[in-house]
């Protein structure tokens, strides 16, 4: 009896010790994240996010990098090697808006980033923000857009004078990858259904291939409901009743249009988060609004979009507690309507808005 009691006690002690170690391990595990402040209002909203994360005591360490395009040997445009190295090491990144100079001779920075890290999935959760009224309430959907091919292949030819051919590329590989990601996302985020958006009645082969891959992925994820809907029907229904939609997966162009349409439903790009998932575990979260050069440096910017993208990042990293705390603080301040930036209908400064959120975060502790 004594030996039984002793082995039982040993087992309990081991369990308790290991639990403590796990707790201490996760609590003190600081993760480094690559931060790309960006251009225009980028630096000030990045500072705002860093302040709020600090107030929330999030276990995040920021590694700032710049991504101006440079020309490598052989004339190929690329992002600076230290930025690439940082992202490859940290895997997780947060990015502010980057300007796309016209006629600079190099492709857009966003395109370069996409190609460098094979950011194949653009994920945009669109949730109505209580306290920021739009004609649409109760929006809660996610658009998952294939981000590497489709209509944005960049392949265009002038066939003869006055006749242009733009090529939309759909491959089995990319379609399979995005379809599987969509179902995995649905499963990991407790979403009930995935809808494939297409126009296979007109683009039989290309969208047909995309649809087939979605159906195959659906077979492997029977726990998630799968439906198909024409792009036009989605648009028609979306503006009448967006609550009928859950997760939407689609090729590049439809994704571009629909994700912006959905952002419009909840209040625009100033309040919409976005994440880009790449190969090899890389994930870059970003605000999708522009650089707003007219208000840059004037402490007028609204950091909500970047902040919500950072919250999305925390969830991706499993830090749900901190994510919830920061998100709640942000929504509370918006709902209170006492301190709001100009685009949200108030006349407070960015720094005041940020301080209010920081205070609320501390109060929530």
């Amino acid at each position, binding site marked *: 009896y004594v030996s039984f009691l002793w082995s039982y006690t040993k087992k309990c002690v081991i369990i308790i010790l290991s639990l403590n170690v796990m707790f201490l391990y996760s609590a003190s595990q600081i993760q480094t994240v690559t931060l790309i402040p960006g251009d225009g209002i980028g630096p000030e909203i990045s500072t705002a996010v860093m302040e709020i994360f600090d107030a929330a005591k999030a276990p995040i360490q920021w590694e700032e990098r710049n991504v101006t395009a440079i020309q490598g040997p052989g004339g190929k445009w690329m992002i600076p090697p230290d930025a690439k190295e940082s992202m490859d090491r940290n895997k997780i990144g947060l990015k502010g808006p980057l300007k796309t100079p016209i006629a600079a001779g190099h492709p857009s920075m966003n395109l370069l980033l996409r190609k460098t890290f094979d950011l194949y999935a653009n994920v945009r959760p669109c949730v109505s923000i209580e306290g920021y009224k739009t004609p649409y309430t109760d929006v809660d959907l996610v658009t998952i857009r294939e981000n590497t091919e489709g209509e944005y292949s960049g392949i*265009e030819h002038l066939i003869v004078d006055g006749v242009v051919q733009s090529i939309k590329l759909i491959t*089995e590989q990319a379609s399979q990858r995005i379809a599987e990601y969509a179902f995995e996302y649905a499963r990991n985020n407790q979403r009930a259904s995935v809808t494939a958006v297409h126009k296979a009645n007109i683009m039989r082969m290309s969208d047909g291939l995309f649809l087939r891959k979605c159906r195959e992925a659906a077979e492997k994820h029977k726990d998630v409901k799968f439906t198909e809907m024409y792009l*036009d029907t989605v648009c*028609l229904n*979306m503006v009448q009743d967006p609550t009928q939609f859950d997760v939407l997966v689609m090729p590049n162009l439809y994704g571009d249009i629909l994700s912006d349409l959905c952002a419009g439903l909840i209040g625009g790009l100033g309040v919409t988060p976005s994440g880009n998932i790449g190969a090899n575990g890389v994930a870059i979260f970003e605000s999708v609004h522009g650089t707003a050069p007219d208000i840059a440096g004037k402490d007028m910017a609204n950091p909500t979009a970047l902040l919500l993208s950072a919250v999305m990042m925390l969830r991706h990293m499993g830090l749900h507690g901190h994510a919830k705390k920061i998100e709640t603080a942000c929504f509370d301040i918006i709902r209170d309507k006492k301190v709001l930036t100009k685009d949200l209908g108030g006349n407070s400064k960015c720094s005041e808005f940020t301080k209010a959120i920081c205070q609320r975060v501390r109060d929530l502790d």
Partner: protein
Amino acid sequence: LRVFSVVLHTVTLIPGDGIGPELANHVCELFRFCCVPVDFEVVNVDSSMDSEEDINNAIMAIRRNGVALKGNIETNHNLPPSYKSRNNLLRTTLDLYANVMHCQSLPGVRTRHRNIDVMIIRENTEGEYSSLEHESVPGVVECLKIITKTKSLRIADYAFRTARAKGRGRVTAVHKANIMKLGDGLFLECCKEVASGYPDITFDSMIVDNTTMQLVSRPQQFDVMVMPNLYGNVVSNVCAGLVGGPGLVPGANYGEDYAVFETGTRNTGKSIANQNTANPTAMLLASCLLLDHLRLHAYARMIRRAILSTVTETRLHTADLGGQGSTSEVVRSVMKAVQSTGPLTLSI
């Protein structure tokens, strides 16, 4: 002794699938009641048939009559690419290059946005709907989007001419020329070129994703919009949804020599077919556009007025508008409203 001669117009009628046949019947019923001098030549298109004989017959009939009223023909998108969309075949063969949809807020229909009055002019024959696809390498499909200077100039000119004719002050070109620099770039250039010939009309442009965002927040800012085929599909469906849904908005397809009228969003409505619940408004308004095209303006005005007074009556709203009215109730009400306008129905 005065002799009245009546010109009897023969119009091709393609019932289509889903709710098409029942709505086509209601149009015939209404026209008979109003003594409209239109004789419908019904041409059925069996979408389950592999051969294109049916659609070719329909096209021949439209060539003969010059004008048609049509329901949507279903496309089974699981069939191989050799089976082309019958609707698209009809549009491209007859070169119905301009698809026009006028989306207006209607009194009596509750929507989130008010005072919408947008005219969407969509290039209807090329762009992404060129049906040119091939699998160059297994697992890699290329789909060609064709933009030509001729067709872009043509649709832009149509847009500006229409804007001027209807007294509308602004045309907005919708595009994605920042990404599709050559294709949409060409489209935009053509619009700019045509715009220079209409100095009385303001011309601007907007990227398609921003356009949809603007439409759901402030649709009142738009007047006339012109765009290539696919964006037209997206924008017209968004606008139709904003003013109350697919049951309300008629659509018109115009070519140099032919015109085909249908519901604006081209739905077959398979799930509600033969249940007497479909909203006939869009199809009935399409038949008014048909009457205007045939210069039977008095009939068009009379019927349109009756339809609009009926749609204001919330008690008669069909399910799509949140009501419980039936299709036949709506049609009966339109007929009653027409009758109450006086002796015009009984003349001729």
